[in-house]
């Protein structure tokens, strides 16, 4: 494992790398083919940029259109060190906040590059016609996000991911029209094809006809998103899966920090057994919403009926410096702590309040002030304030009302933490190359930049950084040596062999004809993961989880019922393949969590906490990236990439 971090000063590494990287001349680019799996922010930006450069790109997604990739659902915003607000932001600060926010478990060089290119992302998106929020003067507006004290988040109401993705999607469609990108919709990558250990293509399944297809290329980019759905319930889209990354892992790509999961503090709580997914209420709401629980245990009064002095604004109490804007891992654990102690609200008692009453009044007064009215009646102030809040968060409030049937303008929202993002993913070097030569991982699918905890509004930034501004350089460095190799023939033996194995696996799933549905296995896996590898973890629980998952796997492969045929559109079959991979991943996540006997970021080992219940890191023993190599059925070997911190010296993270 060589992380290939360039020599030199931290703030010169990327510049230097770009200055010395190998280039491919335009006529050669036309002869080089690149497969991009995934069309979210990472995949779409990569496919578009590579197409523009002249490479022949084949892009794949399992949805019916590339515009529907899960990135579309991102709400709150995207960070960039523009310092338009003149509030002290800089590339260094964004770098620093991200390394600290990640609890010192990320690679400094990658994070610095991310901060450097962040500003170009905003320029690019605006040029594409992304309608970011603006001030009356016509300039871009910013807001704050958790874990930072500056306003560096750009947004488009609560639909930032949608607008960024539509920008990248339009850039891809332009390349499709120009003939540089070929789009394969409703296709699922089933495996990567290696020739002499080097990635040379994929086997994909056409989800409409069920046919397997072999596609050759000079390099393969996995931009397939995160694996939060291993928990069954998460804020991810229903189809989000680990399959592409997992198949690559089984072919030799190491998996980095699999147990690093982000549990987001503000989601709509579970309402019953029927629940199929959880809905995020964007972190941006914590800018204006105040989080609290009743001071009295098991208080059954409505939130709006509990007087001020009987409320515990526990984040403001515990973390006066950051208050409601502490990072996600901290906010989530604090909510769990209050609910476990019996202060939770709502029917299930597994929820806390997120209250906008104060913000509504504050904004109302400001609006009244703008109109020069000093004696406006309270109810008119509230009405004005509601308009302001509606402009900022209207779509989120609507979504909340539709799901819960309650009006969040009148009553505080009920929220609870939910699985949201996975910092872990395929291990990549500085060039975003996995341990398989020719195979790259971008966006949430790689482990790279967020350490043990991601700061809000940084995933969109990373996806677009990887696709627009990093991979065009680093891939060229690899492809420069590929020009002598002609087109990759997908009829070679390696392709046929891989295709045969894929077909056998699919047929095996269909042949089991057991008694239990795929969904029921997924739910059981999710429960094991949430209970034992969720917000709090301990050695005993993790060991139990590993045993339980192994027996679940055996049961799956003998008793699952997958209806339908192989040669037709068969969503249950697609799901079965994904759940089979999630089961294996779940085991590795528990093994990784067991190995890491420290708490850091979102990974909280109950054995390792400070006296006041904060996560306690162990830098002497665990300042490494855990990169797991698959050695066969339920067998892994651990490789460690030691992390050194030249610039941001690790300290106990404090937001007090």
């Amino acid at each position, binding site marked *: 494992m060589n992380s290939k971090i360039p020599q030199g000063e931290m703030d010169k590494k990327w510049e230097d790398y770009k200055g010395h990287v190998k280039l491919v001349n335009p006529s050669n680019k036309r002869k080089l083919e690149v497969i991009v799996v995934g069309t979210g922010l990472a995949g779409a930006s990569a496919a578009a940029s590579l197409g523009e450069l002249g490479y022949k790109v084949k892009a794949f997604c399992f949805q*019916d259109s590339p*515009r*529907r990739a899960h990135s579309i659902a991102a709400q709150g915003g995207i960070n960039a060190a*523009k310092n338009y607000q003149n509030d002290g932001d800089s590339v260094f600060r964004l770098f620093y906040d991200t390394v600290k926010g990640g609890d010192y478990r990320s690679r400094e060089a990658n994070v610095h590059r991310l901060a450097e290119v962040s500003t170009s992302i905003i320029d690019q998106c605006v040029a594409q016609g992304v309608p970011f929020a603006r001030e009356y003067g016509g300039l871009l507006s910013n807001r704050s996000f958790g874990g930072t004290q500056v306003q560096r988040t750009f947004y488009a109401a609560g*639909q930032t991911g949608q607008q960024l993705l*539509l920008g990248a999607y339009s850039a891809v469609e332009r390349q499709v029209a120009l003939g540089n990108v070929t789009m394969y919709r409703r296709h699922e990558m089933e495996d990567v094809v290696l020739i002499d250990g080097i990635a040379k293509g994929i086997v994909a399944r056409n989800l409409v006809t069920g046919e397997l297809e072999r596609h050759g290329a000079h390099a393969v980019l996995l931009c397939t998103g995160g694996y939060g759905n291993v928990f069954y319930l998460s804020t991810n*889209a229903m189809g989000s899966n680990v399959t592409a990354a997992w198949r690559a892992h089984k072919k030799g790509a190491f998996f980095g920090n699999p147990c690093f999961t982000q549990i987001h503090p503000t989601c709509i709580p579970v309402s019953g057994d029927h629940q199929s997914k959880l809905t995020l209420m964007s972190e941006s709401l914590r800018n204006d919403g105040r989080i609290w629980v009743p001071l009295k245990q098991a208080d059954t009064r409505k939130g709006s009926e509990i007087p001020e002095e009987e409320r515990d604004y526990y984040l403001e109490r515990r973390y006066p410096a950051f208050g409601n804007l502490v990072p996600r891992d901290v906010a989530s654990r604090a909510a769990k702590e209050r609910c476990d102690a019996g202060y939770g609200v709502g029917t299930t008692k597994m929820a806390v309040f997120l209250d906008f009453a104060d913000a509504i009044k504050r904004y109302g007064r400001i609006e009244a002030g703008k109109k020069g009215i000093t004696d406006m009646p309270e109810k008119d102030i509230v009405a004005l304030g509601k308009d302001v809040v509606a402009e900022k968060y209207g779509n989120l409030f609507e979504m909340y009302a539709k*799901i819960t049937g309650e009006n969040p303008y009148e009553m505080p929202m009920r929220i609870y933490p939910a699985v949201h993002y996975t910092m872990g993913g395929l291990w990549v070097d500085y060039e975003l190359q996995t341990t398989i030569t020719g195979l790259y991982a971008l966006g949430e699918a790689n482990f790279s930049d967020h350490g043990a905890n991601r700061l809000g509004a940084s995933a969109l930034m990373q996806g677009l950084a990887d696709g627009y501004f990093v991979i065009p350089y680093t891939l060229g460095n690899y492809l420069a040596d590929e020009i002598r190799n002609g087109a990759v023939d997908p009829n070679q033996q390696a392709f046929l062999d891989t295709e045969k194995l894929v077909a056998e696996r699919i047929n095996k799933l269909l042949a089991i004809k057991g008694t239990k549905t795929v969904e029921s296995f997924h739910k059981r896996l999710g429960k094991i993961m949430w209970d034992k590898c969720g917000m709090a973890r301990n050695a005993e629980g993790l060991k139990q989880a590993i045993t339980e998952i192994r027996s679940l796997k055996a049961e799956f492969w003998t008793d699952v019922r997958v209806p339908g045929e192989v040669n037709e559109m068969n969503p249950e079959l697609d799901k079965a393949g994904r759940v089979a991979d999630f089961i294996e991943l779940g085991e590795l996540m528990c093994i990784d969590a067991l190995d890491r006997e420290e708490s850091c970021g979102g990974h909280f080992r109950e054995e390792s906490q400070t006296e006041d219940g904060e996560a306690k890191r162990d830098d002497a023993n665990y300042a490494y990236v855990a990169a797991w190599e698959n050695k066969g059925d339920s067998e892994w070997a651990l490789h460690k990439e030691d992390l050194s911190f030249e610039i941001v010296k690790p300290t106990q993270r404090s937001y007090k």
Partner: protein
Amino acid sequence: MEHYHMNLTLKVWRQKNNKAKGSFETYKVKEISSEMSFLEMFDVLNEQLILEGKSPIAFDHDCREGICGMCSMHINGQVHGPWAQNTTCQLHMRAFKDGDTIVVEPWRSKAFPIVKDLMVNRSAFDRIIEAGGYISVNTGNAVDANAIPIDKKKADDAFMAAACIGCGACVATCINGSAMLFVGAKISQLALLPQGGPERESRALNMVAQMDKEGFGNCTNTYACEAQCPKGISVANIARMNKEYIGAGFATEEN
């Protein structure tokens, strides 16, 4: 919120594939909670079908948050069901009561062929975007994001048009199967922004030409699309598109 349970009868369009002839099948579901989403009710039904050894119903969905535009059911004669400005996935069962019969069909439109059961092929929308629904700016070409201030009203209007999720409900609800609302929204978004200026004319002409080629119908101003659009995309966008299109026509003649 008070919740309750209900037993329902479902009449669902089943069609094995694009070539097969489809028909309605009737199913019963029991003890459905009013807190479920409409698609969660379908999950329950599908689990039941699988355990009975029958084939589950294929339907499109992904985000289940009303933003990806994938879900697409025609419910009791309305695209995305009875709630205003809502997607199928955000419809919740408290919209129904015990004993109801619910009829569910796929989008019906010549330009959206049925793939299976309730799934249709909307790739025509992608091809319309390919024809011009973008600004031609390669990665790295951009100027500083604040170099061109944009009037807030225009930026807001562009955002409102850009909120389209590409679900196709406008087409499915239109008696003519017109895609004007979808196309108008994209043309408007880019026409309202200074960055979209240079390609305004070719964009309008090419996107409209592609729309016609895909077999979408004409607009006869019934405004059903606006009324049923889950994102409240306004028909003002159609008017703006017509203006852009006519303007572009003149411009080409002059050249």
